[in-house]
């Protein structure tokens, strides 16, 4: 894999750069005239500022005091800057590998279908959009409320298939007769048998959660061959209410799930309270039983994963980055894949190799140079990541999402004017690029010789 995708399609003689054989001595005037504009731009806008930034990084933020390496020390001691360093490390450790892997899988899969162009366009498209717009796109995707954020809506839909929402989020027993917590459910201490009635009083119920259908609680009527009871809000605001007694003005709690358990606590049957709070288990054989308010009553509705909160913000931004760059990796790896001789693969298949063996033993090794290019490109891109952090992370979790490029901007330009620190961060960033600089120069040298 050559370093560039664009090459003149002329027959080439010898290596690069082809020095004219009958080289005339042009003097320095002509080449200088051609090079002058470029050298001017590079000197004023790149080389001078680069040196100035390095120099500036040794001075205080206001630039009036020489501080040596103090700014670099801040970089490794300030908590927020350490977070940025840690995040950058995470980005470098995770993203290049992830993007290369995703790109490889996509490239291999898409090669097998006829409509590969449509798929490639869909995956490639985000690359044309600015990372900032991508950030806005994902900010919408990641919204916490399942009514607004698609991702949480998807999770809620899947969850809803398996779990029923409870009617209440929390409550407490009104008397000592019941024990337990909303998480475990409440169990009536007293055992019950056919013909008994039970009073399951609850307090600390949130008023908005009381179902609209709720009616005044009714005294349960005993059933001869069954167990009856009432579950109600054992409290009425301003009314005359005593714990453990169904008083006027107190309402039943419809929808609360009641379980009938045997003496060992094993569930035998379950039912749901009616609008006046009453319930009954009929046809119960003689014996001792226990009644319980099932903990499923208190299953909270799915409130959405807080993707943009401080703990998940970095993985969330990373995911949106993979969404953008997968197309890049897919196309480059796809180009490499197309250049693998079919014969080699066919020969292996004829010899009885499975698809996995062909992939593992032939495709991947042959693709190694292309995979390296993608991997290295991603490291370089990831070290500079800025736009997505600014666009996806809300103010409250910005510090948790920060990267070096982001803190450099934040400390120097978002009103803080910490130019000494900003210069040190930039210089540190440049240092991180030096290995790749050396690789580039070596490659050029190799091509030149």
């Amino acid at each position: 894999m050559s370093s560039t995708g664009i090459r003149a399609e002329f027959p080439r003689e010898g290596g690069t750069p082809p020095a004219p054989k009958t080289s005339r001595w042009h003097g320095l005037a002509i080449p200088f005239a051609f090079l002058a504009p470029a050298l001017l731009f590079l000197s004023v806008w790149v080389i001078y500022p680069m040196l100035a930034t390095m120099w500036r990084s040794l001075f205080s933020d206001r630039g009036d005091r020489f501080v040596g390496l103090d700014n670099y020390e801040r970089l490794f001691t300030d908590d927020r800057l350490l977070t940025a360093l840690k995040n950058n490390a995470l980005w470098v450790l995770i993203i290049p590998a992830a993007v290369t892997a995703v790109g490889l899988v996509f490239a291999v899969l898409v090669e097998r279908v006829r409509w590969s162009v449509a798929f490639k366009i869909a995956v490639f498209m985000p690359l044309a959009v600015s990372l900032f717009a991508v950030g806005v796109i994902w900010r919408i995707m990641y919204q916490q409320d399942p009514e607004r954020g698609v991702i949480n809506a998807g999770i809620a839909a899947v969850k809803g298939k398996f779990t029923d929402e409870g009617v209440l989020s929390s409550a407490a027993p009104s008397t000592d007769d019941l024990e337990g917590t909303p998480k475990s459910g409440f169990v009536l201490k007293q055992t019950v048998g056919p013909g008994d009635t039970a009073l399951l009083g609850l307090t600390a119920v949130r008023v908005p959660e009381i179902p609209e259908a709720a009616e005044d609680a009714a005294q349960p009527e005993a059933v001869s061959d069954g167990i009856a009871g009432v579950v109600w809000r054992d409290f009425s605001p301003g009314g005359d209410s005593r714990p453990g007694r169904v008083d006027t003005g107190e309402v039943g709690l419809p929808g609360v799930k009641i379980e009938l358990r045997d003496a060992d606590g094993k569930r035998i049957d379950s039912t749901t309270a009616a609008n006046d709070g009453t319930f009954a288990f009929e046809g119960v054989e003689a014996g001792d039983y226990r009644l319980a308010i099932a903990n499923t009553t208190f299953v909270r509705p799915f409130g959405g994963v807080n993707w943009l909160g401080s703990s998940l913000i970095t993985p969330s931004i990373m995911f949106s980055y993979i969404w953008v760059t997968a197309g890049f990796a897919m196309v480059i790896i796809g180009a490499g894949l197309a250049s693998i001789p079919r014969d080699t693969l066919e020969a292996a298949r004829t010899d009885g190799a499975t698809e996995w063996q062909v992939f593992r033993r032939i495709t991947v090794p042959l693709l190694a140079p292309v995979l390296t290019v993608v991997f290295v490109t991603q490291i370089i891109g990831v070290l500079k990541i800025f736009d997505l952090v600014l666009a996806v992370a809300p103010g409250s979790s910005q510090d948790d999402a920060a990267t070096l490029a982001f803190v450099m901007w934040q400390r120097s330009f978002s009103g803080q004017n910490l130019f000494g620190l900003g210069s040190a961060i930039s210089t540190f960033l440049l240092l991180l690029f030096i290995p790749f600089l050396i690789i580039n120069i070596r490659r050029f040298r190799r091509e030149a010789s």
Partner: protein
Amino acid sequence: MEAATAETRTAGQPVVIEEGIAPKLVRALGKAPVHLVLVLLGIFWLIPTTGLFITSILQASDQAKGGWWNFFAKPSAWTLENYRNMFDNEGITHALWVTTQVTIGATILPIMVAALAAYALAWIEFPGRDWVFLLVVGLLLVPVQMALIPIFRLYNTFSLYDTVPGLILFHTAFALPFAIFLLRNFFSGIPRDLMEAARIDGASEIRLFFKVILPLGLPAIASLAIFQVLFVWNDLLIGLVLAQANQPIAPAIASQLRQFGSNLDVLAPASFFSAVIPLLVFAMFQRYFVQGLLAGSVK
């Protein structure tokens, strides 16, 4: 008798087809999971952008009601009002105008400057040529962060801060290493005979550059131009640091992020519209785009 018919039938049947259909079916079935996986992935990849688009064509009141997917199949709720408001919003139209100017300037200028330099590095023999090219390759990876603080101060001194030329010049300088690198590699692939013939005919270097190099270098220049248009149009950091009242579109809408949620009717259409131009460029010049991208993988 019956057995005989059956036998003849079997014998008469084109066995080849029977054997052909079965493996085909097996292969198609074997591929079904691949198709399914790719369809699902393709849809997943389209959802986010679709979400932004649908959000952008909903009234603020509808946006507040719930997720955009509720309106996906409800064209009656769609409206271009947000876009109309956006074009009435002077801040945004001004930002779009600035972006256009900066993009055009910062695409043409670096290509011209780089083409001149690349020609000299590829075809004019002079002492220290390799060192100059080495310098260019070395500067390829210098992050823009290295220049922001000194240039910010320099621009304030020379009144280039918050101006379109200021942004163009900065973009130009940082586009040069890559542009020179790319064009020089391309130019040096031009056949030597062609160049020698022109030189023997007495063509000057300038003439050679305009009559031979530029026309032959057009494919590389096109890829570079596409790459640069997208890079400049989509830039956030440089516009954010070096401009304030004359910010390009991305930095201009970045300030809207603070009230994210309450101003989706402004943020969504502006973001989507800012993405439309690059998407059009992508759609029209897909081939060059991919080439430019492949080439840009060294940047």
